[in-house]
């Protein structure tokens, strides 16, 4: 029981009482932790203001949007001032605005001294928010370190991301460029894993000219956490890219 008092848990699916108002949801959560009356009202007001819900405090949670319910769920997990907060997929299925708001709130919470244990399928989210990351594959920890150390651990080659005004049949042709070890297509972009970027960039401009193409954008990239994940799990980068796209589309629809 003592340990339970120090932790807050936010499950993947928001679990507030739809029939109760935002205010009553927070007060009930505080009652379960025996937060004294004056303190619980002060904390409820503070949290509703912080999560941008104070104006809607009297409304039933049932009429809230998915993002608002998510914020209310996180607020209810914080009402007893936990020192450790478990967040399971905090931005899953949310629109961009709500996701950004929740990520900023998580950062701010962490600054106040709350330890946050975050579970997410969004690798960029882990990169933005976490100081230490464990990558899990088939139920086992495949890698555990800080984001930058994880990225550095696989930096055997450099990456150039290039986009042309057309994409048809280019993957094969690009892979024949000198110094190029691997080419992966992401939508209208190609990622070239090369030994030396400064040698490859001029080759790419020649390639574009020879094939009658215009370069829309060109960037050099350091390995992302997604690359680390692909490396440590042996998962196909193409599958990762497809999954990522599907999640983005689902989030935009949500």
């Amino acid at each position, binding site marked *: 029981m003592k340990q339970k008092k120090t932790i807050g848990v936010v*499950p993947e699916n928001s679990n507030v*009482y739809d029939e*109760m108002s935002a205010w009553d949801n927070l007060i009930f959560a505080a*009652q*379960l*932790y025996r937060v004294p009356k004056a303190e619980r009202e002060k904390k409820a007001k503070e949290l509703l203001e912080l999560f941008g819900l104070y104006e809607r405090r009297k409304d039933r949670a049932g009429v809230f949007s998915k993002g608002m319910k998510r914020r209310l769920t996180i607020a*209810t997990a914080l009402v007893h001032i936990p020192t450790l907060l478990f967040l399971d997929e905090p931005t899953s299925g949310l629109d961009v605005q709500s996701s950004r708001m929740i990520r900023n709130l998580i950062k701010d919470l962490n600054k106040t001294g709350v330890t946050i244990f975050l579970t997410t399928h969004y690798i960029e989210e882990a990169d933005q928010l976490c100081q230490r990351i464990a990558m899990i594959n088939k139920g086992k920890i495949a890698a555990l370190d800080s984001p930058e150390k994880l990225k550095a651990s696989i930096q055997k080659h450099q990456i150039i991301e290039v986009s042309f005004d057309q994409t048809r049949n280019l993957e094969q042709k690009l892979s024949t460029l000198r110094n190029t070890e691997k080419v992966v297509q992401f939508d209208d972009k190609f990622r070239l894993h090369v030994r030396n970027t400064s040698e490859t960039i001029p080759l790419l401009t020649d390639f574009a000219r020879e094939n009658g193409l215009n370069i829309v954008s060109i960037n050099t990239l350091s390995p992302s956490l997604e690359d680390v994940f692909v490396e440590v799990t042996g998962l196909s980068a193409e599958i990762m890219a497809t999954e990522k796209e599907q999640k983005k589309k689902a989030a935009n629809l949500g």
Partner: protein
Amino acid sequence: MAKSITDPLIKAFYIAMKDARVYYFKAPNFTFGLLIPISLYLAFSMAGNINPVLIVAGLSSLAMLFGTTSIEAVAVVLEKQTGTFDRLLVAPVSLFTIILGKTIAGFFFGLILAAITVFPLAAFSGVAVMNPVLAVIAIAFASMAFSALGIITSVYANWVPDAQMYANFLRFPMTFLSGTFVALETYPFQMQVLARFLPLTYSVEALRNCISTSAVTSIYIIDIAVLSVFTLVFLAIATVTLRKRLS
């Protein structure tokens, strides 16, 4: 020491108050709590004249049985379905306290149903409740036992209609076996013995007792004692089965 007793009770009370606000006004509670008992009474009354005392005690007990078990079916199963039960589980509240809280919510709902059936029905049928205080006590003990029974029937259900169906396996046989609208003494001996294993029998008997006489009879005391035992046993079974189910 005192805190270890009061703390779970206060938390159980908060859970009960929350359940009252969230679940009391769900439609199945009134359908099961009022419409079905009234329909059953009408079905029995077709057979001939029923003693008004039997009507008041029987109908009120049925309203409590159907109402409390129905609210538990909603309160327990819906919470498991929507994930709000997890909120209770991660809080510093024991499983027994959660069950107690939910039982108290059902208990108050039973009191409300009894209040809107016993006394108006008694007035309507021209029956004087000889000892209203004892009647309230009997109602309280019966409501608590039925409410705890409702938790058990909800533990294994994943959907509210499933929980109502499981509860019906107990509610309807009890209605016919517990001497609800017919004096138990008129039943064959084997059925009288069987009736003694059903909480509804004791609720009906205790209520009849305080409607007919103002004295505290030994039958009334035994009825209240047995209803208390039923409550404790049901609460223990509910805690054990729910713990198993969750693990």
